[in-house]
């Protein structure tokens, strides 16, 4: 492997700003890596070699003109549900298979303005609905640590690209765990900021009250760097938060002294088997050894998270995906009249999981069931937010598993509900809009595969969250204890 591709984003930016390597050289090294490994891994649905080299050249010109850029020459993998002008943007769906984005998502634009170089558009579960990338209609992505296993999802392409050194920053979106779970499966950091911290403008909508863009990176420092660039109010997303963003990059800590970290008593890791139970108990002990005080907290509603989520998210998706009707963009299948054209287009364009969720959502919102299902779930969401507020009266952060198991084999989750269970530990935080991340915390199973520790902070406390995760990462260095298989 060409050495530059293994550098962190922070290191690349320092090197390119310091002119010890040009953005062009850096980009060429990464593109070569993509050509070498991605036919086997399938991270990218679209490779953007030409655009990447153009962007790199622009970065080099800006550096030559005396500018200093926080992401100078940093190779970035963009999840294919984010728009980038002139590039195919598919959401891994047949209905958008040939759609060319006419504008660029705000989060992506901020990355480019800061000197980031887009390497390609990455695979995902169709419309971000899934936990393994197996729901992609356009390709298979493999876990770089074990090619017979899934990379996680829905941001599995971005996670696998970063883990396999085909990018230093992967952009993902997280609705119920879609950044944190693939981060855990691929032995990297997956960070979902507070709902509304990063603009959703240009992100193809799944469940608008939950969707949030965030970075997948090999280090916490890089996650902080990407967050500092992307976060902040955007008038084009009326749900983006209009308050100052405190930079996280210069608040990274080396210890956890003075912090209280809560362990949720309803999250009984013994249910995950003795090996995983021991792994998380060790992680909590490691947090204590770094100076944190570990306290018990309670989330009485924990067991209701999946039910709440699998009403709210499908309801919102059934509404959001109504726009795919064969009229203005995407696939059209002709019919005798406009109604038949809609029905045939959507039947041919959407995969099973997307249809299933649209049907659930349509049912939950339909006359006679709206109060029993949708309104009930919206009330449960209030209870989640309240439970977390109460828990955070006793602690600064909450520690929990990021997923219930390491990466699983393809086609091993046959019924939809067993796949939904993968998100048991990440959904409650999403329902409460909280910032949360997963950081590598060891290995489990046969063969030994990566696991992630999930840390969660109160709303807007990203700086505290990233600072603490940095201390854990520095002290344990679990990610460095295994190597990718490619």
């Amino acid at each position: 492997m060409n050495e530059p591709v293994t550098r962190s984003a922070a290191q690349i930016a320092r090197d390119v700003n310091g002119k010890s390597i040009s953005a062009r050289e850096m980009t060429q090294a990464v593109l070569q890596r993509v050509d070498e490994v991605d036919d086997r891994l399938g991270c990218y649905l679209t490779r953007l070699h030409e655009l990447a080299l153009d962007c790199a050249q622009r970065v080099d010109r800006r550096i030559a003109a005396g500018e200093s850029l926080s992401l100078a020459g940093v190779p970035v993998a963009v999840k294919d549900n984010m728009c980038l002008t002139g590039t195919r943007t598919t959401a891994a769906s047949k209905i958008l298979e040939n759609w060319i984005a006419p504008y660029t998502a705000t989060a992506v634009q901020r990355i480019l303005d800061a000197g980031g170089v887009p390497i390609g558009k990455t695979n995902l579960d169709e419309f971000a609905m899934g936990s393994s990338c197996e729901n992609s209609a356009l390709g298979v992505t493999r876990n770089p640590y074990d090619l017979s296993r899934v990379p996680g999802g829905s941001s599995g392409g971005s996670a696998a690209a970063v883990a396999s050194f085909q990018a230093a920053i992967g952009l993902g979106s997280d609705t119920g765990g879609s950044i944190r779970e693939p981060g855990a499966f691929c032995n990297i950091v997956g960070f979902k900021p507070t709902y509304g911290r990063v603009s959703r403008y240009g992100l193809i909508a799944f469940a608008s009250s939950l969707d949030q863009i965030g970075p997948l990176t090999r280090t916490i420092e890089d996650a902080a760097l990407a967050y500092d660039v992307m976060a902040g109010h955007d008038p084009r997303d009326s749900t983006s938060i209009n308050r100052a963003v405190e930079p996280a990059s210069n608040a990274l800590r080396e210890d956890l002294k003075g912090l209280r970290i809560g362990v949720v008593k309803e999250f009984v890791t013994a249910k995950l088997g003795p090996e995983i139970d021991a792994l998380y108990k060790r992680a909590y002990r490691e947090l204590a050894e770094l100076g944190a005080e570990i306290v018990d907290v309670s989330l009485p509603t924990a067991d209701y998270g999946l039910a709440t989520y699998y009403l709210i998210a499908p309801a919102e998706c059934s509404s959001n995906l109504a726009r795919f009707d064969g009229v203005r963009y995407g696939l059209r299948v002709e019919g005798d009249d406009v109604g038949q054209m809609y029905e045939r287009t959507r039947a041919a364009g959407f995969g099973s999981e997307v249809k299933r969720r649209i049907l659930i959502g349509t049912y939950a919102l339909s006359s006679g069931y709206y109060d029993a299902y949708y309104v009930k779930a919206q009330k449960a969401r209030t209870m989640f937010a309240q439970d977390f507020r109460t828990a955070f009266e006793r602690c600064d952060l909450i520690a929990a598993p990021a997923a219930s198991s390491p990466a699983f084999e393809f086609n091993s989750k046959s019924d939809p509900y067993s796949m939904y269970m993968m998100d048991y530990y990440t959904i409650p935080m999403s329902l409460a809009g909280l910032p949360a991340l997963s950081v590598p915390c060891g290995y489990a199973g046969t063969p030994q595969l990566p696991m992630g520790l999930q840390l969660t902070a109160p709303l807007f406390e990203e700086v505290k969250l990233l600072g603490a995760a940095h201390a854990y990462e520095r002290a344990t260095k679990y990610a460095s204890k295994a190597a990718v298989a490619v």
Partner: protein
Amino acid sequence: MASEKIDVRYVAKLARIALSEEEAVRFGKQLADLLEHVNVLSELETASVPATAQVVESRNVERSDEVTPCLDRETVLAMAPQRQGAFFRVPKIIPES
């Protein structure tokens, strides 16, 4: 909560998705299974709990009514499955009498 049998064809009609026979059977069963799982929510006492649409600073956002640049018409129409001049072309909506 409701426990009656779901008319999956009616739901699919509302959602504008044509279903094959096989899909109607499979989705019908999966929907029923999922609704059984979500029915655990009925255990939560929510009579006095307000509903939350989104958790962070929900407020109405307004902007001044000013003309700003928008997407170029040609760029947008170039992505249309069918167009006629400056319009999206669709199948007939009003039947001939």
